[in-house]
C-alpha cells in the first residue's frame, strides 16, 4: 500500500465511524420535534445498550475453556456487591479491578 492508499483507508474508517455517530443527529435535527417512537427508543435503549456493552466487554472470555470465566464472574460479583453496599462508582470499580488483577496474577 502506498502512503496515499493508507491515508484513504484510515479516512474511510474514520468516515464510517463518524457516520454511525452523526446519523441520528442528522436525521432528527434539534429544531424539529422528534417522532414519539424515536423518543421512546431514546428512553428504552440505554438499559439494553448497557447490558449489551457488559456482554461486549466479556466477549473474548470463554465459558467452556481456560478459566471458565470464573475470575470474571467473581470480580463482577465483587463490583456489584461493593456498588450496592456503598454506591460509590470509583470504589466499586477499583475494588472489582484489584480483585480481578489479584485473581489473574496469583490464583489463575
Amino acid at each position: 500500500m502506498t502512503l496515499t492508499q493508507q491515508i484513504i483507508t484510515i479516512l474511510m474508517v474514520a468516515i464510517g465511524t463518524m457516520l454511525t455517530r452523526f446519523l441520528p443527529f442528522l436525521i432528527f435535527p434539534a429544531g424539529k420535534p422528534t417522532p414519539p417512537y424515536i423518543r421512546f427508543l431514546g428512553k428504552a435503549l440505554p438499559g439494553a445498550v448497557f447490558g449489551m456493552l457488559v456482554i461486549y466487554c466479556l466477549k473474548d472470555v470463554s465459558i467452556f475453556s481456560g478459566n471458565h470465566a470464573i475470575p470474571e464472574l467473581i470480580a463482577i460479583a465483587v463490583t456489584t456487591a461493593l456498588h450496592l453496599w456503598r454506591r460509590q462508582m470509583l470504589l466499586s470499580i477499583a475494588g472489582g479491578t484489584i480483585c480481578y488483577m489479584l485473581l489473574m496474577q496469583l490464583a489463575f
Partner: protein
Amino acid sequence: MSLYPEQSTLKPKDNPSRGTVIRQALAAAFPYTIPIFAGFWFLGITYGIYMNVSGFSFWYPMLMALVIFAGSVEFITVNMLLNPFNPLQALAMALMINARHLFYGISMLDRYKNAGWKKFYLIFGMCDESFSINYSVKIPEGIDRFWFMFFVTLLNHLYWVSGATLGGLLGSVITFSTEGLSFAMTALLVVIFLEQWLKDSVHISELLGLGISLLCLIIFGADGFIIPSMLLLLALLTLLRRRMEYPADTDCTTGEAA
C-alpha cells in the same frame, strides 16, 4: 424531556466568570474518567505496541487514535493496512463494527441539544465510554452540563491518543506487570448498568440487553454478535413498547401506540 431540566442555566448566585465555570466543570468531570484512564492507557498502549511491531511508526497509532477514536475498529484497521487496498471494505467494516453508536445517538438526541459549538465535538467523540458516562452521570448542581460532558469526552480522547502514542513510541520495550488492569472498563460498565437498573422501574430493557446479547454471542460468536443483537433488541423493544412506561415522558406511551 431531559433528566437534568434547566441544569445548564443553574449557576451559583455570584455569576462566576467563564474561566471558573470551565474549571469547575473540569474538576467535576475528571473523577468519572479515572477508570477510563486506566482502561484506555492499557488498551491504547497495547494498540500502539501492536502497530509498532506490525511495522508502523508512532505517527500511525497517534493520528488514528485522534481521527477515528474507536478502539476495536482501530485494531482491525492495522490488519487492513497490511492487506491490499480496499477502501470500500474499510468503510463497510467501520459502519458494521460501530453500528451500536446509532443507539447512542438516538439516546443522546435530547441531552446534546443546545450544546452549541460543543455539540459537534460531543458527537465526534461519542465512544462507548464517553456515551456511558455522559448518559448516566447525574451532573452536580451548579456545574455547566455541556462543559462537563465536553471534558468527559476530551479527557477520554486524550487518554486514548496519549496511550496509543506511548505504545507506538516504546514498542515492545515495555513489559506488563499490569495483567488484568483492563478489567476497569468492564467494571465501569457493570456499575453503569447497575445504576441504570436502580433508576428504571421496569427492567425489561436491561434484561433483554443482557439476555439477547449473550444468546447472540453464543450463536454468532465474538466477531459477529453485535448486529444481530441490535436488530433483535430493536424488534423486541418495539413489540414491548406498550408494556414499558417511562413516566418522565408520557408522549412515549400515548403517541403511536394508542
